[in-house]
């Protein structure tokens, strides 16, 4: 080290006590850009995956799309062996099971979220919250097995006949022979599967309501329910809509449990909720591996494409609602 430097940085020179400063590390200059590009590449991978999926689905279903035209959307009989490719039954089943699931899960989820946010002791709340979250972790196939070996016999022996004997039984939607398997049972079990997701998102959204506003409501002499209903819900509405759409998306694509429970090969739109039916996912699960005829395979992939598009739309709508919820609570906080 020159005498000049030791004048300029006398402290360092004194501390080192020696002429030489520590050698500088050789900085590997390209490291940072490489790192950055690595992360971007990995980020882009998911985009590549999605577009690849979309592309593959379109390409492989092209044969069916051009050959079958609108037939899948207009006829109900799915009988590829006989040249029939009507997907209406599958579509119907998909939507109806989802509807039943949402009709059951959403009120339950709202109630549980209300409990967790307003009504419960923190310790008990942790237990309840964790149990519900565990429910989310249970794999679909377990729900399916539990469903078919435990729930179906119960439905067949007790619940469905009970409904049929009640005033509700007069509705044709509850007619038919109770077999346990069917659209209704599948919808009920599906509800239990999506319950944890809707609950969690709703709970998070309700927690974002500013405390001052809730206090103001209570300060006017409102009960907890009244504050929740008129004030919290208004704040949380977009978020709850997002939660509902998320649940819808999941229910639409749910495969294993529904396959176990909905009854299988069906070619007409079920007239009663207690009749067997099928969903797109169930049709795929049941028949894909046995399909040999290229047109059959292509048609099945077309079903997959339809399912993909539907769930993508619901997911995007859900994200839009959730973004709106976050923005609104941010501006009001």
């Amino acid at each position, binding site marked *: 080290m020159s005498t000049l430097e030791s004048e300029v940085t006398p402290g360092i020179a004194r501390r080192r006590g020696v002429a030489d400063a520590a050698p500088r590390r050789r900085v590997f200059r390209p490291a940072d850009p490489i790192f950055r590009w690595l992360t971007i590449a990995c980020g882009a991978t998911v985009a590549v995956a999605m577009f690849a999926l979309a592309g593959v689905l379109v390409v492989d279903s092209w044969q069916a799309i051009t050959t079958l035209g609108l037939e899948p959307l207009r006829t109900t009989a799915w009988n590829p062996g006989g040249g029939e490719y009507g997907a209406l039954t599958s579509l119907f089943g998909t939507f109806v099971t989802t509807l039943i699931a949402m009709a059951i899960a959403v009120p339950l989820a709202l109630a549980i979220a209300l409990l967790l946010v307003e009504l419960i*002791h*923190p310790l008990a709340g942790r237990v309840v919250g964790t149990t519900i979250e565990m429910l989310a972790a249970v794999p679909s196939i377990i729900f399916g097995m539990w469903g078919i070996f435990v729930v179906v016999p119960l439905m067949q022996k007790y619940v469905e006949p009970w409904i049929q004997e009640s005033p509700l039984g007069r509705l044709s939607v509850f007619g038919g022979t109770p077999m346990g398997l069917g659209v209704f049972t599948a919808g009920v079990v599906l509800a239990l599967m999506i319950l944890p997701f809707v609950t969690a998102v709703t709970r998070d959204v309700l927690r974002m309501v*500013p405390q*001052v*506003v*809730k*206090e*103001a*409501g*209570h*300060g*006017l*002499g*409102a*009960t907890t329910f*009244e504050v929740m209903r*008129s*004030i919290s819900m*208004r*704040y949380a509405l977009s978020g709850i809509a997002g939660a509902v759409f998320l649940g819808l998306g999941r229910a639409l694509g749910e495969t294993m449990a529904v396959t176990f429970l909905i009854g299988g090969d069906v070619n007409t739109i079920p007239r009663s909720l207690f009749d067997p039916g099928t969903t797109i996912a169930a049709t795929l699960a049941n028949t894909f591996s046995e399909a040999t005829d290229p047109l059959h395979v292509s048609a099945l992939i077309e079903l997959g494409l339809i399912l993909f598009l539907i769930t993508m739309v619901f997911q995007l709508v859900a994200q839009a609602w959730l973004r709106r919820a976050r923005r609104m609570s941010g501006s*009001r906080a």
Partner: protein
Amino acid sequence: MALTMTDVAEGRPTIAPPRVAEVAGGQRTSEEFDELPSKLSVRGLDFFYGEERALCGNSLEIKEHRVTAVIGPSGCGKSTHIRCYNRIYELYRDHKAGGEIWFGGRNILEPGTDLLELRRRIGMIFQKPSPFPMTVFDNIAYGLRLHFKLSKGELADRVEDALRRAALWDEVKHKLKEPGLALSGGQQQRLSIARAIAAEPEVILMDEPCSAIDPVATAKIEELIEQLKSQYTIVIVTHNMQQAARVSEYTAFFYEGYVVEFGPTTQIFENPREKQTEDYITGRFS
């Protein structure tokens, strides 16, 4: 007024005790003070946040149709104290109050108290103006719909009435269908006042109502308090001593959870009995 609006707007500090407003018929002696009817009677109020004690044996008399100010340094328990009056602390699990608060012939800290009715009769304005996520009209109507059975016409009348009493009607009468959040800060606070008034309370608690709004709006609210006290009993927590001197007839000085001194505002500011009070008034600590 001893201090002008300009003084307030320019944040003029005072070192000498400020001159107290001449209130018509203002009480200045202890004897006259004792003779007035008490709206709220606090006796030995304690408060705990879990294990931690925040209020110690507070005793106060809140006089009817008067403005009582609660002053003291940050963290001394002023807000905690008045939040006991409407038991809003019940929302939180480990907040506990002990002692007695007499209101309407009953001790409202007793377990059997009807909280819904209590909170209607004792309204609260918070530091942060918090309109509900609804229209201006619905904000006012909220309390009305909760507690009363009213036809549409009656509802509209009462909403207008509340807004007039809060000196907000002229400013919002064309904006009733707009969201409450679209109003300015000062207007939102007056909206909160109107909202509380609509439920026909007897007492209005104000927890630092002017902290979060601009000085011009503050002056409007202080004028409003002056008008309101003939109808209601007002308790106002404030960290602004000049404000306390301007608007109140009685002042309570709190320090570390204790009521150090309580009496007519003129006496507190001109002739404090306790040294602590004097130190605070003269700005030796804040």
